[in-house]
């Protein structure tokens, strides 16, 4: 029996759909749906988590992330310029920094800032200071590489044209190279913001007071408080998605609207 290519494609699609329906039906019968409801979606019992999980948890997560991102942008810009510098010592220092912070787990940086700094220097840092600077230190390393690649992606002729008009090197960089690099790096920077949002949860390793609690802390404490199984974690996860999914859509839009030609 000779099957045409189209018959074969239709058959393959039919088999896949059949399998999917079979698994679905099996799950319906096997799974204990009331247990799943109790463990993951017991919304009634976690009612008291609201509105604090939004007004405190989500807001704190956003704050830690925002401070980390801004510090990361500043540090990343400096490191990227150091990496592109003609002075070799700057290049080595920037490379060492970037390799170090990309190579160690972010949780070590949180622990170092949360416990190490107060032991070593006797400073008492707030949760915002710890989370912001820990995220900023790590993000600087990643953002530096993104910015460097973006600057180098601007065609050489652009800076040459600017210099030929009589712009000093710094002016060509500020007015011509950086604005064009900025468009190139917006999508990867948005992805970096998503990673930072999730990494802000690491602050819970150093302990948080009630006012400083962010989403993960809310989720974890909720497990003990509400007797609703893992439902508080699901709620926390949903809150993260409220932040990260729009960012992700934004990044994809910007990638599609890539203006570069030539």
């Amino acid at each position, binding site marked *: 029996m000779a099957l045409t290519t189209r018959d074969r494609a239709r058959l393959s699609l039919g088999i896949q759909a059949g399998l999917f329906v079979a698994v679905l039906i099996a799950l319906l019968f096997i799974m204990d749906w009331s247990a799943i409801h109790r463990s993951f979606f017991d919304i009634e019992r976690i009612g008291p988590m609201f509105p604090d999980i939004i007004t405190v948890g989500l807001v704190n997560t956003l704050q830690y992330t925002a401070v980390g991102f801004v510090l990361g942008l500043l540090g990343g810009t400096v490191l990227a310029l150091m990496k592109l510098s003609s002075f070799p010592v700057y290049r080595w220092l920037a490379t060492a920094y970037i390799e170090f912070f990309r190579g160690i787990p972010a949780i070590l940086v949180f622990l170092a800032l949360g416990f190490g700094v107060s032991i070593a220097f006797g400073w008492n840092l707030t949760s915002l200071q710890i989370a912001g600077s820990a995220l900023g230190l790590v993000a600087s390393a990643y953002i530096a590489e993104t910015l460097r690649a973006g600057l180098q992606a601007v065609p050489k002729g652009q800076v040459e044209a600017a*210099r030929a*008009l009589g*712009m000093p090197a710094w002016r060509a960089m500020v*007015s011509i190279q950086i604005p064009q690099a900025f468009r190139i790096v917006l999508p990867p920077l948005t992805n970096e913001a998503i990673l930072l949002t999730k990494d802000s949860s690491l602050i819970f390793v150093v302990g948080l007071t009630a006012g400083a609690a962010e989403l993960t802390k809310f989720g974890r404490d909720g497990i003990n408080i509400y007797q609703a199984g893992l439902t508080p974690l699901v709620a926390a996860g949903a809150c993260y998605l409220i932040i990260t999914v729009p960012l992700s859509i934004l990044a994809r839009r910007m990638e599609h609207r890539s203006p570069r*030609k030539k």
Partner: protein
Amino acid sequence: MTEPELAEHSSAEDGPAGVTITGLHKAYGDNEVLKGIDMSVRPGEVVCLIGASGSGKSTLLRCVNRLEDPNAGTITVGSFEATDPDVDLDAMRRHIGMVFQQFNLFPHLSVLENCTITPRRVLKQPKEDAEAEAMTQLRRVGLEELAQRRPDQLSGGQQQRVAIARALTMRPALMLFDEPTSALDPETVGDVLAIMRQLAEAGMTMIVVTHEMAFAREVADRVVFMDQGRVVEEGPAAEVIGDPQQPRTQDFLRRVLNPTDVDIRD
């Protein structure tokens, strides 16, 4: 920018600059691209630089405004000693306009902003003055209605005309053109050449790298033929193009003027 530099800039309006090149050498690693070039261009003169691809024409042009650093030799442009290690390169470049084969307009800026960014940011001209001057130059190249467009909304020929206008807003005393029509669709070449001809007639000093022999013949005061990093022949356009003396010049012109002959000779 300091006051003396501003004063220096206004001196560009005194008139076109001459260029003197002596003993110019340039190598990339072991590859010696310019092997001792001597050449001079009088103020207001139009010189067309012709020669096969790879003969060093672009490199020579780029040494004049020091986008490339020569290994030896001297270049003077007007009152500027281009090869002096202490020369103020930015100030010198403000007197020298350059037009590239690939236009190199700034894609993130409008046509008008392309023309005003350097006058405003470097010469610190007030916005209104810079825009008035930019519109004057855009009118000169016939594109004032497109002032608010982005470069990517323009045809190649229009982009190149904007690039010329952008260079002119700096009131240069010398214009360098590196194959300004080589990347253009044939039907837009004429507009760009017409503007260059007007500029020549207005008395601008111009060094033009081109393969447009008809343009060279009609507009150039002098034609310089380069081959493998050396000036092989130079003289009035009618002589070099119409009656070349050197075998290499004859050979090159035959190829350019009758491209279909190439296969037979090779």
